[in-house]
């Protein structure tokens, strides 16, 4: 039976004012520029993501957060981002866009709590498990195991998404949405660290499979 997940996000709130305004204003120009195309791993992946979920995606460029927002356009995203961005002049924007800063050198427990609190309150948190922009060769870097622990602590499913960016300006962007992976349903409780590392590798393989779908020619 599908687990009922809380979604306490309001349709309108002052907290989301800037986010919603920018998103609504950028929707049409973005659609024209990206001309996005969606593909789905399976029938189950076509379902709308409701309640708390951790979205993971490949990271090949600075534009990826925007791509990911278009991929799952019907939800507000809380991006997990490096604290260095919060130390810059753009801090105001990152705060309005509900980004959650983490210290990559010294991951603190406060950040973990902030992320899991958002997840448990029904938010969609998006994260790039490679931890940095990959080398641009098209190959995915190894995945960190932190997102697995975050999903387990937040008790939410992981939704893998692959973004095939535009290679030339006339190309379209392809989003491949994977089937949600419910670790709580699979394990019941937090599995040992060895298993968490294995799940991170499994997610990497899943992302590779989604990449194959993204590069398949349309029949």
């Amino acid at each position, binding site marked *: 039976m599908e687990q009922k997940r809380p979604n306490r996000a309001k349709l309108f709130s002052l907290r989301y004012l800037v986010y919603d305004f920018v998103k609504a204003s950028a929707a049409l120009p973005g659609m024209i520029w990206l001309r996005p195309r969606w593909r789905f791993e399976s029938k189950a992946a076509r379902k709308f993501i409701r309640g708390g979920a951790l979205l993971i995606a490949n990271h090949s460029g600075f534009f990826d957060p925007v791509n990911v927002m278009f991929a799952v356009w019907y939800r507000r995203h809380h991006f997990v981002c490096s604290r260095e961005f919060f130390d810059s002049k753009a801090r105001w924007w990152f705060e309005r866009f509900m980004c959650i800063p983490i210290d990559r050198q010294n*991951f*603190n*427990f*406060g950040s973990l709590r902030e992320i899991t609190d958002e997840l448990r309150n029904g938010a969609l948190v998006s994260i790039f498990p490679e931890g940095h922009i990959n080398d641009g060769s098209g190959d995915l870097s190894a995945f960190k195991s932190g997102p697995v622990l975050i999903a387990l602590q937040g008790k939410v499913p992981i939704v893998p998404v692959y973004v095939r960016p535009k290679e030339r300006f006339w190309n379209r962007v392809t989003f491949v949405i994977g089937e949600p992976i419910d670790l709580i349903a699979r394990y019941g409780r937090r599995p*040992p*660290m060895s298993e*968490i590392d294995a799940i991170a590798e499994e997610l990497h393989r899943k992302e590779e499979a989604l990449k194959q779908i993204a590069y398949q020619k349309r029949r």
Partner: protein
Amino acid sequence: MSRTEIIEKLKEILLAADDRNRDKVLACTEDSRLVADLGFSSVSMLYMVIAIEEEMNIRFDNVGASDFETLGNVVTYIEAKLK
């Protein structure tokens, strides 16, 4: 709870969390360094903290993974929290 009892409890938690370093965990002392001697990563450090919070019913403040260099540092932190 004495420091020795806390260390024993920590060993239990660490073994349940990851039994790949079983021998190292069983032989660890307060001077054992979490990263260099026990092979901890930032994620396994978080895992340990979550497990400690659940098992010992304490709450860690906003401390970072690199704030604990040795097992003794963790024991001191827990001891202070249990007081």
